């Protein structure tokens, strides 16, 4: 199959270069010259037999003096081999690449991120602004020659510009690049700023919303208020140290993110993980997922004004936090998975506590449905607003429960089973309508599925070691590694470029939340303000994961 794809790509773009030992890594890595990239992208996306419609991530790299991007493509129609495309720029002075944001909508924010970190400008991109950093930031921080002293801390009060300007680069008919700048919002528009300090943006996210009466016209998300430069920090950290930063990305799926990073390292080191650890990790992942969905449910109810439901969700989440605390010593950040297994054995009470929790949670779910799902106010509000169809969901890369509610089967646990997921029976909860109500309902149904997974595993944890022996210093072999896991918000991808050191050369985390926020604009167009807040709740994004 991989051979077919190779031939197909070569006929579409003869100048493409095959790279790496693709047989083993189960993906095809190609290198494409910039001139052919956009053309190839269009064919990859539209050719009947290829249909690479899901752009998982665009990763900027500064590898040995060359600047470029790595695109990771999947097809949702065919069980195709994933395609990894490298595109390099001509030089470092004025690096420019052709934008593919017209092919995949999700590329819009990814390319802005690459511009922000590496200074690669994308021609034909509709809105070439920095994504996370301030507009007056000096230099591009993830370039290897970035001077850490170039941006001293600003401690004085600064006026905020009402009307931000953005740039656009267009290719005219002669093939020359024409630069132009434009104002984001018209002077006449009624722009209301939601956030960064707002009760229901679920973190420090700023949404600038252009309103007409109560109706939303356009929305511009502004990130970066909790940007910590985690990817830059990781370049200095050893692999075990990186683990504790992965937890701080999407703090509600902390254990799952950490599990993903451990999986990547174990796969790269070709390490065998004890079965016991695999089972324990899976149970912890599912408990984390339940806790996250409970909080998602609770905060969505709170967004819709049902504060009591919020407290009920928090109350029941507390039970999971107690289970975590007893075994791992941590509540939100469990620091449990380590490379090679888990850091300590489960507590003697663990199984009993988990088994007590299962029936309790099922009972509470029934209560939630009576209290909130069947409430006519809530039901009408949720069913009447926020529709996202499957094609748009895929184009924007909306994974996780939100994507599944639109009918996209994207559960990584099913597509690429990892850990103990191949050993358990569970359903991938999907819907076809893609409204706010479906997103809400899929989330609650997933709690039931997670409970079923835990039920199948908790009594069958095999005896044995909980951790494989590892070297004192962990060094990943040279090469590029990809890993993805299904966290509570969707496809959490990790890319590591290792030069054989104890720290990665470049690490990139694919944030599922960023795709969710980017899809906010097409969903909320024409809805009411109240629905904007509710749809935000139904998408359930976590901001620290976006900002990194």
């Amino acid at each position, binding site marked *: 199959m991989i051979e077919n794809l190779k031939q197909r790509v070569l006929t579409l773009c003869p100048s493409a270069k095959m790279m790496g030992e693709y047989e083993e890594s189960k993906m095809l890595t190609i290198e494409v010259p910039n001139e052919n990239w956009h053309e190839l992208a269009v064919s990859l996306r539209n050719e009947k037999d290829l249909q690479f419609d899901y752009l998982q991530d665009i990763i900027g790299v500064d590898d040995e003096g060359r600047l470029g991007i790595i695109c990771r493509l999947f097809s949702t129609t065919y069980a195709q081999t994933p395609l990894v495309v490298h595109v390099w720029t001509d030089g470092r002075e004025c690096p420019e690449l052709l934008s593919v944001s017209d092919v995949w909508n999700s590329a819009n924010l990814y390319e802005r991120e690459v511009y922000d970190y590496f200074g690669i400008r994308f021609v034909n991109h509709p809105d070439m602004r920095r994504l996370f950093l301030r507009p007056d930031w000096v230099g591009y921080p993830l370039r290897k020659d970035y001077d850490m002293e170039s941006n001293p801390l600003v401690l004085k009060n600064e006026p905020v510009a009402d009307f931000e300007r953005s740039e656009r680069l267009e290719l005219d008919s002669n093939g020359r690049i024409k630069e132009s700048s434009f104002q984001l919002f018209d002077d006449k528009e*009624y722009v*209301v700023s939601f956030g960064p300090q*707002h*009760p*229901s943006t679920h973190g420090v996210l700023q949404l600038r919303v252009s*309103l007409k009466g*109560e109706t939303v016209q356009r929305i511009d998300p502004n990130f970066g208020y909790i940007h910590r430069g985690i990817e830059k920090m990781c370049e200095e950290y050893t692999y075990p140290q990186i683990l504790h930063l992965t937890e701080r990305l999407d703090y509600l799926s902390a254990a799952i993110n950490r599990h993903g990073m451990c999986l990547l390292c174990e796969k790269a080191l070709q390490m065998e993980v004890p079965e016991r650890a695999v089972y324990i990790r899976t149970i912890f992942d599912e408990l984390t997922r339940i806790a996250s969905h409970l909080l998602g449910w609770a905060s969505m*109810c*709170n*967004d*819709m*004004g*049902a*504060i*009591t*439901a919020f*407290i*009920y969700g928090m*109350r029941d989440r507390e039970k999971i936090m107690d289970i975590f605390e007893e075994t791992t010593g941590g509540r939100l950040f469990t620091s449990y998975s380590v490379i090679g297994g888990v850091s300590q054995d489960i507590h003697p009470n663990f199984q009993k506590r988990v088994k007590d929790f299962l029936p309790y949670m099922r009972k509470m779910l029934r209560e939630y449905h009576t*209290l*909130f799902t069947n*409430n006519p*106010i*809530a039901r*009408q*509000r949720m069913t009447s607003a926020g529709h996202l169809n499957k094609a748009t969901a895929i184009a924007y890369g909306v994974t996780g429960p939100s994507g599944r509610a639109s009918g996209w089967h994207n559960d990584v646990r099913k597509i690429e089973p990892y850990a103990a997921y191949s050993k358990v029976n569970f359903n991938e909860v999907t819907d076809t309508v893609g409204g706010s109500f479906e997103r809400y309902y899929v989330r609650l149904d997933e709690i039931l599925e997670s409970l079923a997974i835990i039920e199948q595993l908790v009594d069958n944890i095999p005896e044995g070691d909980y951790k494989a022996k590892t070297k004192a210093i962990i060094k990943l072999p040279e090469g590029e590694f990809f890993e993805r896991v299904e966290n509570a918000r969707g496809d959490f991808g990790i890319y590591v470029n290792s030069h054989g050191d104890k720290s990665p050369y470049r690490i990139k985390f694919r944030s599922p939340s960023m795709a969710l926020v980017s899809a906010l604009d097409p969903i909320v167009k024409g809805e*009411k*303000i*109240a*629905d904007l*807040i509710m749809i935000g709740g139904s998408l359930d994004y976590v901001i620290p994961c976006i900002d990194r």
Partner: protein
Amino acid sequence: MFDFSVITCWIDNLLRVEWGLPDFWTLAIEFVLVGVALLTAYALIALVLIYAERKICGFFQCRIGPNRVGKWGLLQVVADMIKILTKEIIPIKRSDKFLFLMAPFFVIIGSILTFAALPFGLGLQAIDFNIGVVYILAVSSLGVIGILLAGWSSNNKYSLIGAIRSGAQLVSYELSAGLSLMVAVVLAGTMQLSEIVEAQSDLWFIFKGGIFAFVAFVIYLIAGHAETNRGPFDLAEAESELTAGYHTEYSGITFGFYYVAEYTNLFIVAAIATTMFLGGWMPLHIPGFDAFNAVMDYIPTPIWFFGKCAFCIFMALWVRWSYPRLRIDQLLKLEWKVLMPITLVNLAAVAVAVTM
């Protein structure tokens, strides 16, 4: 039944006959006394309600509620009030200062004026208009001016959206509220509040009026609740959408005014519902059970009144802490497509039933 007019007549007698004051001074002193009594009642009711709401809300949410300041947190509200009084009133740049400071007074005056006509007990009523129902409806809707002014003068987009929402909401719900009260007026045959209460001396309207009165009572509670801008009708405030809606920019005592007025409005809605449908201060009398009726008469009338109010308020809190907020179009749909038609049919039916 103890008639509180004994006390008021004694005071009047003391001033006029014993001290021999002229009419002007007698009235002046009496006005001041009534004013002080009403304002004290106003403040006390607000304090008690704030405490009750926080405690009851806590219980609905599996919490205990305030329990740190004083025994069972009883002094929490007092402490909060002291805090609010000592806080700075933050001036807003480029706001309409005059209207900005005037808005809270509109809200508070609207609710204080209503207090004057409420019959708290037998003989405990400041003014007994012959058109009491209309008076109450008129003054209690003054508050919307305060809310609109606050939203307009704050120079804040959230406030403006909140105020406009509130305007649409209050204007529409005023209709159902007023029309559902008319059911009680039709049953009693008068608009004077004391006589409406008197008309329920054999049995309260909610029982006597059958299904009509019950429907009108429920609709009044819903519409009245919507007029107080409290959840699930708190669109004007909408914490999760508009941070605090029309009073986003208010601080210190100006915010305190909105806060207090919210709770007294809650009480006023309960009090009007009580007076019109639950017999006001009238004890429970069942025709034919004379011994039972006599026993009921021993319970003082203000206790009956406040007890029934407490029941209505508890219902309001129960609903508030169970349901999500409505969206603006749902809110208007509920009024114009559900409540209004039902009220009109109900009113017509009760009119026919009474004349026949």
